[in-house]
């Protein structure tokens, strides 16, 4: 039993995606102090990197904006970005957590005027767009950033460029002397809402993601279709920036595969249906083919499938493609396999091929303190263990299921943190 005096009513939420944000506001609105920490420079997680949400195809701003407002209105939530957990000691009711914070080089007084970015000359890979383009070394993480504050890449520290950036900020918000720091927190409960990462497409050697430029992943497709993406929202094939006339969407790219992720990632079928809708909205003459083992529109989302099935330019091919090959002519790629309904062995050329890669828990990246006993075989955190998990950290879920799981996690945390 933990010593009574060391018990705390504060709840720590690790991960500032839609799940972490939800758990934080729910717990705070129920009267608990909450510390929300996020590894990257902004809240929002993967949802902020979507173009739109199924099933209604609304913009990610909807969900996020409301929740940002709830955070701002609450005096009980403290947000630390660029922060992650270095160590956890103690147990339910009384944890001591060491939080490690990376330097942002920009102080809270930043007004997001952008003068620093104007002074920056070098460019770095754009994390928001999965590295498909570049941003200035001083940049806003994205248009929906929370906090609305710039971040400066560490590569300019100690360079003339860094000095110019610092001088450009009229209110003196740039501080290139910031160092990595850490602090300790006493909390009663910890909610892990660390989310997911896309399963690495490079592992699927038969699909040649690494050497065929027009073979992309579903998360890249989200960015291509987004107004703040690398192409300003125009879906083009990477090799020559032409609008694709034929698009193949390959389901279960890594999911439901004992050689990769043995489980169903649950959202990719619907995400691909959404991608078919993106393409068809932009290009009246485009043909989209969805290659699938079986379409899994979970929950109440079958109507979305039926809607797309009515479009004669969206084809459904019951087949897990065996391999993808270079096309003889210029860009594009050839999708090869067996149509399991007709037994036809096909090799079909497409301008653009999108791999519907699944979701892998982000703890795989190994930047979390050891919590092996609470992890299942795939790295998801058991919702029933001692650790409290929310959203995709607990298993593959869509946004609405993540929000439900986060609300449940907030309740569990409140119970553990209430003396």
């Amino acid at each position, binding site marked *: 039993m933990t010593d009574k005096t060391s018990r705390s009513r504060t709840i720590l939420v690790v991960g500032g995606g839609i799940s972490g944000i939800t758990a934080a506001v729910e717990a705070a609105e129920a009267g608990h102090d909450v510390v929300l920490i996020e590894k990257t420079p902004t809240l929002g997680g993967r949802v902020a990197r979507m173009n739109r949400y199924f099933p209604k195809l609304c913009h990610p701003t909807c969900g996020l904006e409301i929740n940002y407002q709830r955070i701002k209105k609450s005096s009980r939530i403290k947000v630390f970005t660029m922060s992650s957990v270095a160590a956890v000691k103690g147990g339910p009711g009384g944890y001591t957590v060491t939080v490690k914070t990376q330097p942002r080089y920009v102080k809270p007084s930043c007004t997001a005027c952008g003068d620093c970015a104007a002074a920056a000359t070098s460019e770095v890979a754009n994390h928001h767009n999965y590295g498909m383009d570049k941003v200035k070394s001083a940049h806003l993480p994205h248009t929906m950033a929370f906090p609305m504050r710039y971040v400066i890449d560490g590569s300019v520290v100690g360079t003339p460029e860094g000095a110019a950036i610092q001088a450009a900020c009229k209110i003196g918000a740039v501080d290139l002397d910031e160092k990595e720091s850490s602090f300790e927190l006493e909390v009663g409960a910890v909610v892990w809402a660390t989310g997911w990462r896309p399963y690495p497409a490079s592992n699927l050697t038969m699909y040649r993601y690494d050497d065929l430029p027009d073979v992309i992943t579903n998360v890249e497709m989200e960015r291509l279709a987004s107004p703040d993406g690398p192409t300003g929202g125009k879906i083009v094939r990477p090799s020559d920036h032409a609008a694709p006339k034929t698009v193949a969407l390959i389901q279960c790219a890594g999911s439901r595969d004992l*050689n990769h992720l043995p489980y169903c990632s649950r959202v990719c079928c619907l995400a691909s249906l959404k991608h078919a809708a993106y393409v068809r909205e932009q290009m009246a003459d485009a043909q989209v083919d969805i290659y699938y083992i079986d379409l899994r529109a979970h929950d109440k989302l079958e109507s979305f499938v039926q809607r797309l099935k009515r479009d004669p330019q969206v084809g459904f091919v019951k087949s897990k493609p065996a391999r993808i090959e270079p096309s003889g002519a210029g860009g594009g790629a050839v999708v090869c396999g067996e149509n399991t309904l007709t037994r036809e062995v096909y090799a079909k050329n497409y301008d653009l091929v999108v791999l519907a890669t699944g979701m892998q828990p982000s703890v795989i990246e190994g930047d979390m303190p050891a919590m092996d006993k609470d992890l299942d075989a795939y790295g998801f955190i058991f919702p029933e263990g001692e650790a409290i998990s929310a959203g995709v950290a607990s298993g593959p879920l869509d946004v609405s299921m993540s929000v439900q799981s986060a609300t449940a996690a907030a309740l569990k945390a409140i119970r553990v943190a209430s003396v």
Partner: protein
Amino acid sequence: MSTYDLNFARWVYENVDGGDKMALCMQCGTCSGSCPLGAQMDYGPRKLFMMVRAGLKDKVLESNTLWNCVSCYNCVVRCPRQVPVKYVLHSLGTAAVRAGIPAATKSDNARFARAFWWSASKLGRTDERIVTALFYFSYGLSKGFKMAMANLPVALGLVKTKRMHIGAPYMCKNKGELKTILAKAAEIEARHAK
């Protein structure tokens, strides 16, 4: 008219090498799509496995899919359910031969296997000339002769480049011992079959 043997799937699961794993097949088509001979097979592994489940015993055992597999292992490494596809096909082929299915016993592969085994078991070595001759003449005298003549230039080329020798066939030294080993192997196999 197809006849259905409803015990066939169970028999395959229990008696065919890798057959138990076949139960995991989810009909995705990766195997047939990966197969370099996929388009030449009557059914391809995926459909064949479904036919096993359906109990289409005769059609399965008569299928050329069992014999067209070239053991490239594409299917084995790619199958998302880790079904040892190639092994299942080959074991089904063996089962078909043992069942005396004419399509199987008369297939090119079975003829070649018999020729190969005759040389290996009787001489302790596979002598190319004996194996090919037995293979060709298994089709009868006149067809065998035609096949041999068609391949004569190849054979002469091999002799010229010293890839095939002329003279007495290769043989192992102690054929008595080989006989004992093979008898023992047959005994073990018979025990396992029970």
